[in-house]
Structure formats: C-alpha cells, structure tokens
C-alpha cells in the first residue's frame, strides 16, 4: 500500500490529517482497514482507528504476560513468561495463542519494531542489564516487577493502531519456535523491503518545527522532573527502611520492660505488639513502592528518551529533505521538476510528522492516565499503611485502660 499509492493521493491523505486539530479526534468509526499488507502509517482509516483504540469495547486484540518460570539448563538459567493472546483479527490464524518467551525475545521484538516502524514511538522495555550481586535476577520481587513491565510493553503495542499490525509482533505472539524465525529474519536483512534506514547520514537540521520543538523541550524538562521524583522516592524508601530498623529494636524493649513489671506487664506487652504490627505495615509500604512505583517511573524515563530519539530521527529525515531540496534549488533549472528522490524525501517527512504527532498524542493521553493511576496508587498505599497502624493503636487503648482485678 505504502509503496504503491501515488504520491498525489498520499499528499491528499496527509492534508486531511493535518486539518484536524490533534484534540479533535471525534470521527465516526470507519470500516476496519485492510491490513493484509504492512500497514500504511499514513492511512486515513488508521487515523480513525486511533480513536477506537481508546475505547475498550472495540478492541480486538488482548495480550497478557504472566506465569514466570525458571529454566535451568546446562549453559544458563533463565526465566520464561507465558504470553497469551486473544483476538478476532483476521491476521491471526487462531483466536487464541499461548506461548512462552524470555526477555531476549522481547528485546528482539523491540529492535525489530524500531527497525521496521522507525516513524513510530516504540514502548520501552524494562532494563536489560542488572548488576549481578546487587540485584537477584531470580527473586520473586524482581521477576514480578519485570513481568508487569513486559505485560505493559505488549499491551501498549497491542493498543497501537499501527504497531499492533506489525508482522514481527504477530510472529512474536504466535510462533512456536521464535528462534527459527529470528534466524530467518537475519538472512532477510539484505532485502530492501525490510530495513529501511531512515537515518541516512548526518544532516544538520536548521530548525525544528515549533510543535516538535515544544515536545522536545517538554520532554527534556519532563525527564528531569521524573528523575528528581525517582530520587525522592528512592530516598523516602531508604529513610523508611532506616526508620524500620529502629522500630524493630524499639518494640521489643517494651516487652523486656513488661517482663520486669506485674501490673504494667500487659499494657507494655500490648505496646510492643502494636509497634510490631506497625513494622509489618511499613515493610509492606516500602516493598510496594519499590516494586510498583519506582519501575513505572523509570519506564517513563526510558519512554521519554525513546521519544526524544524518534524526534531526532525525524529531524534527520527533515534535514535530509531540506538538504536535497537546497541542492536542487541551486541547480539551474528550466522547469521546476521535482526529482523523484526529493519527492520521496518530502513524503517521508510528512508521513513521519503525521505518525509522530499521532503517537505523541496517544503518548500524552496514556501518560496522563498512567501517572494518575501511579500517583493515586502511591497515595493509596500510604493511606493503607496509616490505616493499619491506626487499627493497631486503637485496639490497644482498651487494653491500656483496663483496670486489673485486685489480686
């Protein structure tokens, strides 16, 4: 589709897209796009799909990552995750799939997506390398945190109107033997259709269009703020754990004291137990923050860095176009005929811009929802912590006020 459509109709479609204010996506549901061929990123109908994807009812592709399992082999030990797919899409032979994948498969997928969909923002993966000795790669918490991030990763792709139709994604979700496909893919690298290198040398962009410049500036500040929040959250966890250490010594002293006393024994023991309960609650709070809050924050930092890279790629494409345009203008021309490759560059710029704008829009919306959920979750966890402590202290008031029977 993308390579066959005439440039004229391509321009028409892009104009239509550009006429829409990004907020004004109130379009009637269009008919499903024919996705038998690699999806055209500038397909108008895909634009219509954009709105549909936010509406869960019309979603037709559901992906879940769960059930981590450890595999111990002679050469290595690693974890696989079950990836379950439910779909009504025609691109999938079966309505349901369940296969197992390991982290390097996800990494492979991401690289493939970046290669094949260079004008789109690919969601981030959780960090690849973990310092051995510092983090236990096989601990329950680590695996669970990773699982959640991988689940999010696939869900974001599944929700994307263009990426979800990507062939590599399809194979990832369905193939029994992914490694065979991977090897095959390496051989095809040389084929033109596959790896369209958009970054064609280093061209210098004179100025970024305002809207992209604004996003770039936004992202720079955003990443900084997220980094600050990450550091604050880490610091809070650290302080909480140090507080916990002291509390763990504090509670038992009341118990020791109770051992010396008679009438005060029960009250003191009660206070000791109460503090113990608060310790448990605090431990749960800091574990939750470590496992749920920090990873999402870091993910968004990676996401933002991805976005910045895509912006840079876009700049490259535009720079190339402008350079070529200039080169043409310098030549003495009888008739202002646009050479084919310059036209192609222009197409590329416009499509990239369109894709990127769409992706930026989704990203902003998702970001808002994600952070709303994340921060509300953080508030919730703290409320739960205080409620647990409150219950503990309220329950010993009657014990403390109790008058012992006269012996």
């Amino acid at each position: 589709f993308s390579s066959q459509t005439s440039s004229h109709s391509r321009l028409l479609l892009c104009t239509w897209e550009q006429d829409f204010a990004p907020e004004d996506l109130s379009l009637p549901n269009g008919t499903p796009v024919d996705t038998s061929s690699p999806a055209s990123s500038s397909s108008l109908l895909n634009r219509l799909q954009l709105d549909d994807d936010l509406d869960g009812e019309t979603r037709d592709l559901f992906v879940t990552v769960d059930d981590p399992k450890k595999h111990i082999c002679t050469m290595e030990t690693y974890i696989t995750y079950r990836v379950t797919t439910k779909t009504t899409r025609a691109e999938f032979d079966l309505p349901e799939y369940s296969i197992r994948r390991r982290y390097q498969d996800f990494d492979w997928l991401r690289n493939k997506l970046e290669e094949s969909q260079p004008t789109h923002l690919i969601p981030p993966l959780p960090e690849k390398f973990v310092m051995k000795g510092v983090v236990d790669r096989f601990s329950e918490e680590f695996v669970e945190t990773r699982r959640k991030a991988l689940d999010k990763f696939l869900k974001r792709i599944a929700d994307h109107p263009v990426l979800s139709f990507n062939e590599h994604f399809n194979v990832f979700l369905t193939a029994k033997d992914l490694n065979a496909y991977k090897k095959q893919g390496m051989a095809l690298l040389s084929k033109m259709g596959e790896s369209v290198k958009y970054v064609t040398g280093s061209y210098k962009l004179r100025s970024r269009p305002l809207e992209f410049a604004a996003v770039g500036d936004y992202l720079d500040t955003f990443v900084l703020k997220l980094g600050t929040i990450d550091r604050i959250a880490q610091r809070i966890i650290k302080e909480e754990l140090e507080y916990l250490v002291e509390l763990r010594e504090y509670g038992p002293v009341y118990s020791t004291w109770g051992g010396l006393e008679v009438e005060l024994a029960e009250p003191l023991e009660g206070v000791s137990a109460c503090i113990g309960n608060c310790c448990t609650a605090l431990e749960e709070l800091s574990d939750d923050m470590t496992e749920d809050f920090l990873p999402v924050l870091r993910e968004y930092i990676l996401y933002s860095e991805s976005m910045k890279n895509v912006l840079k790629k876009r700049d490259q494409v535009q720079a190339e176009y402008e350079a070529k345009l200039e080169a043409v203008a310098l030549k003495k021309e009888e008739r202002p005929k646009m050479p084919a490759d310059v036209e192609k560059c222009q197409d590329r710029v416009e499509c990239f811009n369109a894709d990127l704008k769409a992706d930026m829009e989704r990203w902003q919306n998702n970001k808002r929802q994600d952070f709303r959920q994340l921060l509300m979750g953080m508030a919730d966890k703290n409320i739960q912590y205080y409620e647990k402590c409150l219950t503990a202290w309220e329950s010993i008031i009657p014990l403390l006020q109790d008058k012992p029977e006269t012996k």
Partner: protein
Amino acid sequence: MSACAEGEPSRAPIPMERPEAEPLSASGSCQAGEAEAEAGSGPAAEEPGGRAAGTMMEDCLSKKIEITVSEAEKRTGRNAMNMQEIYTAYLIETRAVESQTEGQCSPPDSLWRRYSEFELLRNYLLVNYPHIVVPPLPEKRAEFVWHKLSADNMDPDFVERRRIGLENFLIRVASHPIICQDKIFYSFLTQEGGWKEMVNETGFQLKAESRLKALNATFRVKNPDKRFTELKHYSDELQSVISHLLRVRARVADRLYGVYKVHGNYGRVFSEWSAIEKEMGDGLQSAGHHMDVYAASIDDILEEEEHYADQLKEYLFYAEALRAVCRKHELIQYDLEMAAQDLASKKQQCEELATGTLRTFSLKGMTSKLFGQESPEQREGKIKVLEEQIHDGEEQLKSKNVEGREFVKSAWADIERFKEQKNHDLKEALINYAVMQISMCKKGIQVWTNAKECFSKM
C-alpha cells in the same frame, strides 16, 4: 534479720523481727496516707512508739495551695568564682486553693529560683527523709537528644520542658503526705531571701552518708531484707530498660523526621512539573501542597512526643531514688551487723578473761602467754571495762534494732505508695502515647486522602 555473731553458733541470735517478706508485686493495698497507720503487721505491735499515725492525703500541702512554675527568665550573675555567668531563673507562684473556690482571684505569691536551688532542696530532702522515695528533678543536662533537639541548656525548648519538670517536682513533693510538711520545703516556696542560708544551717550536709561508706555496706552486708534486695535489682533493671527505651526512641524520632521531611521535596518537584503540564497541572500543584503540609506536620508530632519522653525520664530518675532507699537500708543493716559482731566479740573476750581459757587467737593472749600472765587485779579491771562496754553495746544494739525495723516499715510503706503511683502514671503515659500515635495516623490518612483526590483530578 538476724545478725549472727561469728564463731558463736551456740549463742542464740539477738532477735530482730523481720516482717513477712512480700513479693515486689504485692498489690500495694492502701493509699499513701493510710500506709503509715497500717504498715507492717507483727512488729508494729512490739514497737513502743512507732511512727505517728500518718497524715491523710487530704492534709497534703497540694490540697491547700496551688503551685505553678509559670515562667523562665535568663539572668546574668556571678558564680562562686566571681565569673560572670548566664543562668535561667524560674518563677514559682503559689496560691491558696480556697481563695479560688470562693471566686476570688487573689494574686499569687511568687518568687524566683534557679535550678541549683532546686537541687539543694532535693539533696536536703534526700538526707533528711532517707526512707522516702524522693521525687526526682528534671534532667540536669539534655540527654537522649536526637538531631533536631538541642543539647544546649539555654535552648528555649529545653528550658520550657525543664520548667514543666520543675513544676511537676514541686507538685509531687507537695502531694507527698510526709515531706509536704517539711518547713524547709515550705520556705522554698514562700521565702525568697535567705533560704539557702537556712538550709545550710540545718547542717544536713554533715548527715549525708559518704558514698564510699555506702558502697562498703552494699558489698559487706550479710542479711539485708530480701525485699530490699529485690527492689534494688528491680530499680537497676528499670533504669537499664528505660535508658535503652529512651535511646532507641530518640533514634526512631530522628528517622521518622527524615521520612516526613523528604516528602516535602515532592511539593517542590510537583510544582515545577505542573508548570509544563496542561491538564495535569492543577492536580499536581495542589497535591504538592498537601505534601508540604505532610512534611511540616512532623514538627508538632515530635514535640508532643518529647513530653512522653519526659514522663519516662521521670521514672528513670525515680529508679535512682528507689536505689537510694535500698542503700540506706543496707547501711543501717550493715551498721547493725557490725555492732552485733562487735558486741559478740567483746562478750567472748570477757568470757575468756573470766574463765582463763583462750578460745580465739589474740595477739594479747599470745604475748601474755609468752611474757607472763596478767595479775588477777589487771584481769578484773579488764573484765569490768568490758562489762561496761557490753552493757552499752547491748543498749545501742537495741536502739539500732528499733531504728532498723522502723526504717524498714516506713520505707516499705512509701515504696508501696510509690508503686501505686508508678503504675498509675506509666499507664497514663502509655495511653497518652497511644493517643498521640492515633492522632498521627489520622493526620496521615487525611493528608494522603487529600493528595489522592488531587491526583484523581489530573
């Protein structure tokens, strides 16, 4: 408590009654006031005088006058070495209770005292009422401080807490049925000038037992009342456990302070972040404000907790007062044992001289053997002297006996009173502590609920 004379198993020990040993845990039956009249079972009947039937609580000074330490003021003066010093003076106000109930608002009598005068008063009470568990003063130097607290005696928070502690001390003394009647104490409250001289004139410093003597008695006493031995162990352990508790509590406070304050950083970053957001901006900004509130709330919370720490400290110092009473008992008992031992040895000497037998080794005996016996006249003379000494000794022993028994009785009565007070006060303190924790939890829930609402509007 029988002081057995050494080497005289056949001689019946001088009877000294020991009241039925009661475990430390016995529910101190009576109110402080009645303790005097009821204390001790058997021995009381034997004693001729015993202590006068005690004053009832109603007669305590605290019922008649209201005492407050209302102000603290920095003063400059000259110390003992004529160097300029800065110290804090505290205003003691006293007001007759009746004048208030009648609706009259008569101005209180007041005078200024500094900490060292309080110390003087307390030392006086310690010496003159060794059988009483004398209320302690607030700490001389700030201890168990965590980083935000100052260890400086001039720090206003420290001065304020000391003011409260001094008031508490005066009220405790005034509420004690025995020591509230002391004249020196009354003068302390009412007589501004010349009080120090008055106290020193009582010569109480001379009565004070030397530390060395007390230590010696502690190690060498053979038959102290078991209850006092137990009490001593208890007060040692109490001191140890409360110290530990206060130390850890200070560290806990320090850490909690850190947790709360770091949250304040959220306030700033949310504010900065909201500046680059459109729809999310308002929610973030207002949530940030709540984070600031949260961070600021810890200051009041921890200040309140300091009062709890002060309540614990009072009983930490009370443990020392308990020990002082035990020490006094050991001293008296040791004194008694020494006197009995001395008497027994004199009797033995007498007997030996009379019968001419030499049962125990003595240098005199050896020398007389070597260098010739004494003449019968000399021997008679010695016997007479010894008999006189024995007579005196027996009289002394009797009175020491009485003194010892009286001390045990009255001390134990006050200890029972103290136990009741301690159990009551510490329970109150624990309840207050729990209430503080509850309040802190509720505040926490409130703030995070507010923040959550702001986030939901993002």
